[in-house]
């Protein structure tokens, strides 16, 4: 019975039905299934199937995002249960991410945040128009190992350089790897400002993040 329920949770992710993922996860907890088992035997396999379908071109980005939303809603039920059992999920890294000061473009940055979360990263999304000091404070608070800086304008991308300069001044540069992105950002720009890498899309950002923290993609 429990196997069937786990398969249903998995399938709900593949079907892109977050409401079903949520209610089935609720049901699984009610029936006494261990949260770690739900994650390992239902949610992760479901996300992997979605990822495979995407990789071979059958699924599109909205399929991934909606599945990630289902996963997120299930985790909202499971995380308190994990804490109650003093259990935790391993994460490849803690990420602070945001769009730099002066820039209000959100979609690309949020997509990267979603995809990093779906790949197990612990993500603190600081939103848009983020002052340098806010990034710095959050990195200190969370001991983040990755920082993602988005900029969509040729005039605001210079702020990415300023953030990196401040990291150096604050003695944080060796703690965090910096990823930059946004439409005008190029490899030569990333190298110029001393970032650790850049990606052109969300899946590229996930691969980059994994590489930067030393996880096999």
């Amino acid at each position, binding site marked *: 019975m429990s196997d069937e329920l786990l398969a249903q949770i998995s399938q709900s992710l593949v079907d892109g039905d977050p409401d079903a993922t949520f209610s089935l996860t609720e049901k699984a907890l009610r029936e006494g299934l261990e949260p770690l088992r739900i994650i390992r035997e239902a949610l992760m396999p479901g996300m992997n199937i979605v990822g495979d379908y*995407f990789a071979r071109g059958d699924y*599109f*980005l909205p399929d991934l995002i909606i599945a990630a939303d289902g996963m997120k809603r299930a985790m909202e039920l499971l995380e308190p249960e994990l804490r109650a059992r003093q259990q935790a999920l391993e994460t490849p890294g803690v990420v602070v991410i945001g769009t730099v000061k002066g820039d209000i473009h959100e*979609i690309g940055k949020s*997509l990267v945040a979603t995809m990093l979360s779906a790949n197990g990263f612990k993500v603190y999304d600081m939103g848009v128009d983020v002052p340098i000091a806010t990034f710095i404070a959050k990195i200190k608070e969370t001991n983040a190992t990755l920082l993602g800086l988005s900029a969509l304008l*040729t005039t605001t991308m210079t702020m990415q350089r300023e953030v990196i300069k401040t990291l150096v001044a604050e003695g944080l540069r060796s703690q965090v790897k910096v990823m930059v992105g946004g*439409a005008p950002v190029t490899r*030569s720009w990333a190298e110029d400002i001393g970032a650790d890498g850049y990606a052109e899309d969300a899946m590229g950002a996930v691969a980059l993040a994994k590489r930067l923290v030393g996880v096999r993609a």
Partner: protein
Amino acid sequence: MSQKIKGITNPKISLNILTPDEVMQIHTATLEVIESVGVRFPSEKALNILEEHDAKVDRQTMVARIPGHVIEEYLAKAPPTYTLAALDPALDLPLDGNHSFLGTDGCGVEILDAFSGERRRTTKQDVMDVARVADYLDAIAFHWVPISAQDCPPESRSLHELQAVWRVSKKHVQTETIVNEREMVAAIDMAAGLVGGKDALRQRPVLSIMQCTYSPLGQDGGSLEAGLAAAEAGLPVGYMTMASAGSNAPITLAGTLVVGNAEVISALALMQMHAPGCPVYYAAAQTMTDLRTGAYTGGGPEDYLFGAASNVLSDFYKVPLSMGAYATGAKEPDWQAGVDNAFSSFMAVLTMSDMLLGAGLLHGSRILSYEELLMDSEIWSMLESMFKGIEVTPDSLALDVIRSVGQFGSYLAQRHTRQFMRERWMPTLIDRRPYNAWEEKKDGARDWARAKAQDILREYHPIGIVPDQDAEFSRIIAGIEKLD
């Protein structure tokens, strides 16, 4: 070379893309969105104006819900036709609904060097060089700031870019890189200085202003305040939606038109509330989101449809249109670039878009290629030829010469042929050589375009502004830089 501009006028072919009833449905849906969902105007100044005009304003979210009849009332104040002035009046561009003009694209961050071929970040010198080539090409009627002067300070960069273009060209300039009031005021000073003051500028706007909306259903605060300042000065102002179906607009094409339309007409109505009767234009460059990466695409069948449909909408609102055509997503001047730019410009001209943007950039308006700029100009010359259509007159029916050639002669030897042959289109980049001639070098359009660009860059040194005006520009720019 810049003494003549090749516009397209009196087209003999046309297209029905939306029925009047469908346009009305899009319009009604748009007004419902503006009135009930609202549009975000993150500027106190803009919100104050909207509130004075019966909009319901939420100061917290900065969303304004504007009654539909107010939008209609103020849009009706916009002049349906006007002229974009040039420093040389022979290069003026009448936006009268019966002309299509091509401009460069913007605002790229990299350039493929005309001589080394190397891809590198762009500078003010590059802005000037591209403007020289654009000035040379008669297909290019007006300038956008094609690439970013990244060696100049961000707070004055847009003004350096204007200076660079004006140094070498007397064609009209439409800038898309001024996104705050302070730089706009300085740019107005610069333009006014060129024509003899602010009143003269109102009569002869040698500068027009392009601002972007912020999809979905939003504006940018700096762009709004810059636009309001320009509207006050009588410079033509347009707001461009780049709504991208599937990410910041609905996946359905009509839905994307509604979202973009709401952004554009709410901004244009705001300009009319602030400066009634000021020249404004509709601007659009909707596209598809790439469903695999989430990126802005540039090119593809949806783009071509958007290009034609946007002009139907701007006609409905009786304002000119500046349409993002061309602007391929291709990485090189290749097959994809040719397909994209031919279809997109064809569809936009088919509906007589007043201004088309996009010549010369690759990779979704990121990388400037001189080769592409020349190839795009060749596409334009094909369009110009096509839109003349087929003339049917006694001369063109050619009965006399048909009689004299009969079944056994050749038209090559006829005076009739010689008389009319210069009306036919002649390529500069399309390869029509014999196979053997091609086989010798296996060269082609890209090589010839590059060689031509190199020639222009080496030999063509047009003069826009005089040294005194240039010095005044530098003084104005230095004033802005000192403020920081």
